[in-house]
């Protein structure tokens, strides 16, 4: 139902406005269902549909223990508040919906509030959410002060006579506010804490769409609310995007908790989206609305893609957790046999997120590359060099993401089960598989049929940048996606897909020569003469990422601890205990010292309430005398 209304909103292109006035000053429940809102609602609709189908199966396990009613209430409250956030036309209503979304998400993250870890993560989440709400509060107050009324439309008109310093302050406030919500690198610490502890269908929704609320905010305010931002603003967004992408994937590589790995990947993909958005801002500042439109399409298309395949991956991780009861990859393995459907969906998700062709991840990264390339020509001075460098960092991120998902998929699903699994692992219930299935289908459809889907962005582009570039992005009778530049780069995932299938025929023929003569036998893998391979010989997640840990050791500061238990001589150990840990630099260097400083100051301040009445009277006496002396004379 939501999906339908969303598509309706986009295709028309004309904003649908309706509002109810409320008794409270300044708060008008007015909604503006324009193209940008329509697009984000479409993403929300797709995800909400898939997750609710998935939740049928997932929640069966809760039947007795938790009250599902409260869970349902929070779930729909989250969806409702997201819809309002996307369509709010009144700044105050936007803020109210924004915080309700944060509170609903907090309720859901701490749904298992029995274990301390999820409570702590929930608190961290809500405190960071409130900090970013505070920044938005200040930003909106500044804008309302300039424009007089609280409607987004009035911000648009008031943007002209924003002084440059006001515009800069407003930009920083909004970037800080939306950045924290989107989980950008310096403010990301709540994301890998909160998403893994939430129930899987919720962390899917959190990573999929709640992070995108930050992106929506940036798009709405930067492109629509603050007028034309100076180029340094776009470059800042770009640099932060690159930082988040690279560091996000590097931290993801070191994780061996499946859901934390996916949470770090959300940071990486948000970084990629920000690269697109930053490029769009820089082009707009440099006066190339055409290129800005392409970059914006890249960013928004990647938002949609990331929402879909991240949600798919989280649902997959959820069904693994549902069946095996653990998220630690070191104890998983060999799940492809008992859970073939989940494995296949997870594989499609992994291929899509690593940006490998025929799927949708590749298409949006391709568009980002094209806009970065075009950036070289369009911008002047040193910034020209920045764009291709960002492109190479994007490539590094893509390749590292591929490495990370090879590890995630292989260690979880392939070869022999590592942990001593007591109960036999069963396939996820049918509804969960169906939930994942439709998302997989969405990935494939978006990947192959991208050219039909691009027209969706025309209305949005026209509204935000006044450009309709959809047409010249599609050439070659509707199959080929082009970069919008004559003789520019072109790619067609549809033809690549068909090519792959067609070339499969000669390969199958070649193989059939051999298989017709001899039956393929199944034998034990080569074990260098040892008495048979057991699961202990298999590669573990830590081992897989060891090479990268050594190469990037300057970032990780890895700490290694080996204790060998031996009785006769150290060279014949009975058991070796190996423990390696990567240092959480951001937490250790930045957040923990800040917190300690604050608490130490607070405990010292408690001395002023030390209980002696003489001290209390002295405070009043001193204030009285000071005021008498200084207050009167002036």
């Amino acid at each position, binding site marked *: 139902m939501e999906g339908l209304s969303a598509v309706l909103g986009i295709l028309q292109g004309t904003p649908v406005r309706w509002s109810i006035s409320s008794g409270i000053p300044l708060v008008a429940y007015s909604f503006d269902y324009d193209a940008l809102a329509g697009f984000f609602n479409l993403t929300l609709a797709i995800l909400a549909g898939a997750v609710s189908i998935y939740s049928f199966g997932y929640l069966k396990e809760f039947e007795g223990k938790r009250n599902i009613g409260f869970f349902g209430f929070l779930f729909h409250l989250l969806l409702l508040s997201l819809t309002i956030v996307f369509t709010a036309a009144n700044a*105050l209503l936007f803020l109210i919906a*924004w915080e309700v979304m944060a509170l609903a998400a907090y309720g859901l993250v701490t749904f298992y509030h*029995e274990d301390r870890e999820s*409570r702590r993560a*929930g608190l961290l989440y809500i*405190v960071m959410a409130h900090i970013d709400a505070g920044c938005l509060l200040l930003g909106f107050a500044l804008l309302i002060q300039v424009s007089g009324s609280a409607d987004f439309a009035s911000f648009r008109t008031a943007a002209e006579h924003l002084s440059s310093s006001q515009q800069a*302050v407003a930009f920083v406030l909004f970037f800080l506010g939306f950045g924290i919500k989107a989980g950008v690198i310096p403010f990301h610490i709540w994301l890998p804490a909160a998403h893994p502890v939430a129930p899987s269908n919720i962390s899917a929704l959190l990573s999929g769409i709640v992070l995108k609320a930050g992106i929506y905010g940036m798009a709405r305010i930067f492109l629509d609310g603050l007028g034309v931002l100076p180029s340094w603003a776009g470059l800042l967004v770009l640099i932060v995007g690159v930082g988040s992408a690279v560091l996000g994937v590097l931290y993801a590589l070191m994780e061996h908790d499946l859901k934390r790995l996916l949470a770090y990947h959300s940071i990486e993909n948000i970084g990629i989206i920000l690269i697109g958005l930053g490029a769009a801002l820089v082009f707009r500042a440099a006066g190339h609305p055409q290129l800005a439109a392409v970059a914006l399409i890249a960013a928004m298309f990647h938002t949609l893609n990331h929402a879909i395949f991240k949600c798919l991956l989280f649902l997959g991780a959820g069904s693994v957790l549902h069946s095996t009861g653990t998220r630690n990859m070191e104890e998983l393995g060999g799940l492809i046999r008992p859970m073939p459907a989940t494995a296949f969906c997870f594989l499609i998700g992994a291929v899509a997120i690593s940006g490998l062709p025929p799927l949708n991840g590749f298409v949006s990264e391709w568009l980002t590359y094209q806009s970065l390339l075009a950036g070289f020509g369009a911008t002047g001075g040193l910034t020209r060099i920045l764009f291709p460098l960002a492109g190479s960092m994007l490539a590094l991120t893509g390749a590292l993401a591929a490495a990370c998902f090879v590890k995630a998929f292989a260690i979880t699903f392939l070869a022999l089960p590592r942990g001593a699994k007591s109960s036999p692992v069963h396939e996820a219930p049918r509804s969960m598989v169906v939930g994942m299935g439709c998302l997989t289908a969405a990935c494939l459809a978006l990947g192959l049929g991208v050219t039909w889907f691009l027209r969706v962005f025309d209305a949005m582009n026209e509204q935000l940048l006044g450009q309709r570039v959809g047409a010249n992005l599609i050439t070659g009778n509707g199959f080929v996606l082009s970069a919008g530049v004559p003789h520019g780069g072109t790619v067609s995932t549809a033809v690549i897909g068909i090519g792959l299938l067609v070339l499969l025929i000669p390969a199958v023929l070649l193989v059939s020569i051999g298989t017709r003569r001899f039956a393929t036998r199944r034998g034990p893998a080569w074990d260098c003469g040892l008495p048979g391979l057991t699961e202990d010989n298999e590669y573990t997640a830590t081992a897989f990422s060891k090479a990268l840990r050594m190469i990037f050791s300057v970032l990780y500061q890895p700490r290694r601890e080996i204790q060998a238990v031996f009785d006769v001589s150290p060279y014949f150990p009975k058991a070796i205990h190996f423990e390696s840990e990567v240092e959480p630099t951001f937490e250790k260097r930045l957040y923990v010292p800040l917190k300690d400083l604050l608490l130490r100051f607070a405990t010292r301040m408690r001395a002023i309430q030390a209980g002696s*009445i003489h001290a*209390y*009277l002295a405070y009043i006496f001193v204030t009285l005398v000071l005021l008498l002396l200084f207050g009167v004379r002036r």
Partner: protein
Amino acid sequence: MILLWLLIVPLAAGPLAFFLRRRQLMEVVNLFAFAVLLCLAAALGVRVLRSGPVSVWDGFFYADALSALVVLLSAFVALVCSIYAVGYFRHDERSGVFQEGEDLGGGRAINKLREYYALTPLFVFSMILVALANNLGILWVAIEGTTLASVFLVMFYGRETSLEAAWKYAIIGGVGLSMALFGTILTYYSAHQALGTDTLAGLNWSALVGNASQFDKPTMRLAFILILLGYGTKAGIAPMHTWKPDAYSEAPIPGAAMLAAGVLNCALYGLVRFYILSSKCLGPELASHLLILFGLLSMGVAVPFILVQKNFRRMLAYSSIDHSGIMVLALGFGGPLGVLGMLLHMTFHSITKPLLFFCAGNVQQQLKTDLFREAKGGLIHSMPLSGGAFLMATLAVTGAPPFSLFLSEFTILRAGFSRGYLVLPVLFVTFLVAIFSGFLIHIANLVLGPDPGIPAAETCRWKKSSVVGSALVIIVMGFWIPAPLFRLIQGAVDIVVSGR
């Protein structure tokens, strides 16, 4: 005539309850009196809206929109607290809390109840008198009345700590009020110069406000400083706030709630009256600089104490210090927006704060402690209703958006920006966020968590009805404000801004 009835009802209820001796009768009298009071207050509000200021006995009692608002809020708080008090004291009686005070000479349990049910109406009477008194001297006498009535409330349990709290409350309150008296005298002196009359009207608010501009400037400056310190002590603003944590953690919950929501409004009402006089006479600079300074100081003082608090009763006190700071800051920002923000905040705060006290009361009575350490958390399992309400009230009080306090804080923020300040609003928001985080972290650890195995304890009808009732009012207020209430607030804003 409504004014007289508003005063007679609580005045009569006090002694009546004192002589009735039996608990059920006293409770009925108390509830009935405050219910009637609320209806009268509402009628007064409507009357003031329709036909402007109401006065009786040639101006001795005078009620304009501002005083009608304060009367309405005091009546609402009194009613909600009295409903809760019924359940609260029944639980106290059952769990033998009074015996503990007896060996310290506190008197038998039934005497305690008689003391409470006699004093609370007198306490409410003096709060109503504050709002209705036209003569600033009588205003001072009324506030002194609230102090004296509430000293016994703080001393209610008769434990050593409650004696200490009562002594500090009485002494600091006495000093504060003497400064306020000195300010009133000086105001009368500066008015005396201009008016020259010796009659009773010399101190009447309606007479003074008309020609406030010809008052004697330096006297009025000194008078405003003294009034700010005096009534600031009663409101609990920063350097004079030290009595609040002790008083609130020792008084019985209904008493503490009335102190927090009722006396705070009266003290600020007094401060606003003098603010109008001084801004008409001296121009707004002096008043706004001082008010902003004290407002931010109180919010600043509240932050560290909330962050590292060990006792949730005292944390409520610091939260009310923070809110008095916010209101004073709003008044300091001034202008139509600032005053609107302050009055909205006063209204929403008086509605939200009692619920917070009720939940804290339920938790304290159930766990027999008010320390976070001893309450092992997981309250949601044994007390789902008050645990959930506690969490919701925390979000409401700290100004989380879906609730109404966010709207008033946003208006205050806009007022700050409209005055051209930039650093102050940023400081204001940082304090708000810090207090939100401190508050929520403590309460979340208290309410959520594994099931400690305490037997379910939500039994008393009265307590549950008051918690649910005020929770509903808070939620509704978040989205819709009744039009007459909002017109009343706007009327009060006109009075403060234009000083009619």
